[in-house]
């Protein structure tokens, strides 16, 4: 039975696209058939982060409008054969996405894949609503700061009210993914603590992804961090998150700052 997972946040720049790519690739590496879909029509980026931008011919809008068949628009990842991407269109606007069209595409995808991971656009408008509408599960990506937490709270409310499941009186399974977590700043009390975020949002914690240059590097080379550098700290956090999504019970590690002599010297000098 296919699972539809939406990666959403409300706020922009918190790491939705990065997390979609990393989680999608992590799930696909367990042998499951995974498709990641970019719902950010007009500002597509998932193809870049996945390194597929040079292979895009047809996109989600073409499929929704019936100009292309789904198989023509799906791009299979070269590094992981169980991973596919369905890109968004850059030249159309969000109105080109119709709820009927999306429903039809989703139905077709459910037959082909084990996991359908939807990368939501920022905001709470139509695009974000269409991305979450068919979701069975949601990953709410949040940074440990007040504006991100408040926006996430808003999105959680929408997941509970405007989705297909909510309309059937069922719940969308929600998970919190804390990203861009900076252990140093957390230790100095410059960020909201994990406990505070969990207390405000009160949904289960899927993982904590430390702020890392590896994530930026992975995006720039067009590879999910779980494929380009599986040993790095953020990749390990995503792998564990993917295992939790599949139902495993694992303890969540809170990243701590590694205080080496070198770091200490460096900090002294810039201070």
């Amino acid at each position, binding site marked *: 039975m296919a699972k539809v997972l939406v990666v959403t946040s409300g706020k922009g720049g918190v790491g939705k696209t990065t997390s979609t790519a990393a989680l999608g690739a992590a799930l696909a590496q367990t042998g499951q058939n995974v498709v990641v879909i970019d719902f950010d029509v*007009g*500002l*597509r980026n998932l193809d870049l982060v996945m390194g597929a*931008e*040079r*292979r*895009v*011919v047809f996109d989600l809008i073409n499929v929704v409008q*019936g*100009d*292309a068949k789904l198989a023509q628009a799906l791009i299979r990842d070269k590094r992981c054969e169980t991973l596919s991407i369905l890109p968004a269109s*850059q*030249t159309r606007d969000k109105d080109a996405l119709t709820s009927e069209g999306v429903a039809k595409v989703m139905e077709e995808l459910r037959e082909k894949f084990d996991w359908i991971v939807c990368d939501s656009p920022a905001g709470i408008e139509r695009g974000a609503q269409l991305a979450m509408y068919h979701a069975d599960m949601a990953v709410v990506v949040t940074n440990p700061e007040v504006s991100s937490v408040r926006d996430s709270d808003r999105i959680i409310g929408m997941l509970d009210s405007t989705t297909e499941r909510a309309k059937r009186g069922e719940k969308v399974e929600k998970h919190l993914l804390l990203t861009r977590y900076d252990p140093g700043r957390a230790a100095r009390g410059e960020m909201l603590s994990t406990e505070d975020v969990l207390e405000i949002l009160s949904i289960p914690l899927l993982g904590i992804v430390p702020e890392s240059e590896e994530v930026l590097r992975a995006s720039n080379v067009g590879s999910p961090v779980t494929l380009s550098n599986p040993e790095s700290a953020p990749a390990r956090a995503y792998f564990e998150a993917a295992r939790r999504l599949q139902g495993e019970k694992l303890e969540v590690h809170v990243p701590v700052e590694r205080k080496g002599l070198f770091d200490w010297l460096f900090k002294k000098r810039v201070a």
Partner: protein
Amino acid sequence: MSSSPLHAATGTTPAPDAPIQIRARGRSFLALVLSPERPLSNWLESLDAQIARSAAFFAGKPVILDLALLHADDEGLDTLQARLIERGIRIIGVEGGNPEWPALAQWDMPTGLEGGRASGAVDIPETTEAISPVDTPKSVSNGETRIVDASIRSGQSIMHMTGDLVVIGSVASGAEVVASGSIHVYGSLRGRAVAGVGGQTGARIFATRTHAELLAVDGYYMTAEEMEAGLVGLATQALLVDDRIVVQKIG
């Protein structure tokens, strides 16, 4: 309709004893009946989108315009005919509506046709599978050249369905330029260029610096990945050879 020229022809035949037999043969064409809907601006947008997907389908097809869904005071009704003609749609008849409407005063009303029979909805084929090169026009440029004196940003789409398109500037990644004729980019082509949309197999794509995401001529395409790495960033032309896009260095 053709009876008077026929009489005239027989009348001027110089040999009175052996009048030349005028031969007439019947030929039927399927005319498309288009029914514009309100608001007209939206309908025209949808029409453009349809033309972009299946331009060859409209080329050379007789069209009857049915105004039954419109009202006398609809915005844009006065210029509708001109708008359709500039899109290359050949209107052979107008029905529905009322010729007395003031908005129709400027229209060049074709004389009514007789004997048409409704033949049901017509499926408009999409370019990706339906264009057969046999019945498409052969000329590379069939109208005016459009010149754009600006760079095309990501997300923008410039469409020119009646000839060549010239861009004095760059076409960014995520932007697209579409033309029925050839496309010339005097700058970096980083986005998509789709030429020969009306089925013009001879259309070409020229760019001073080629980093294109996708090059297409008459429905045949090549993605960035398929392009020869040695040509990236150079001045090139892309043309169709045996149904394949070929990119060549120029200059």
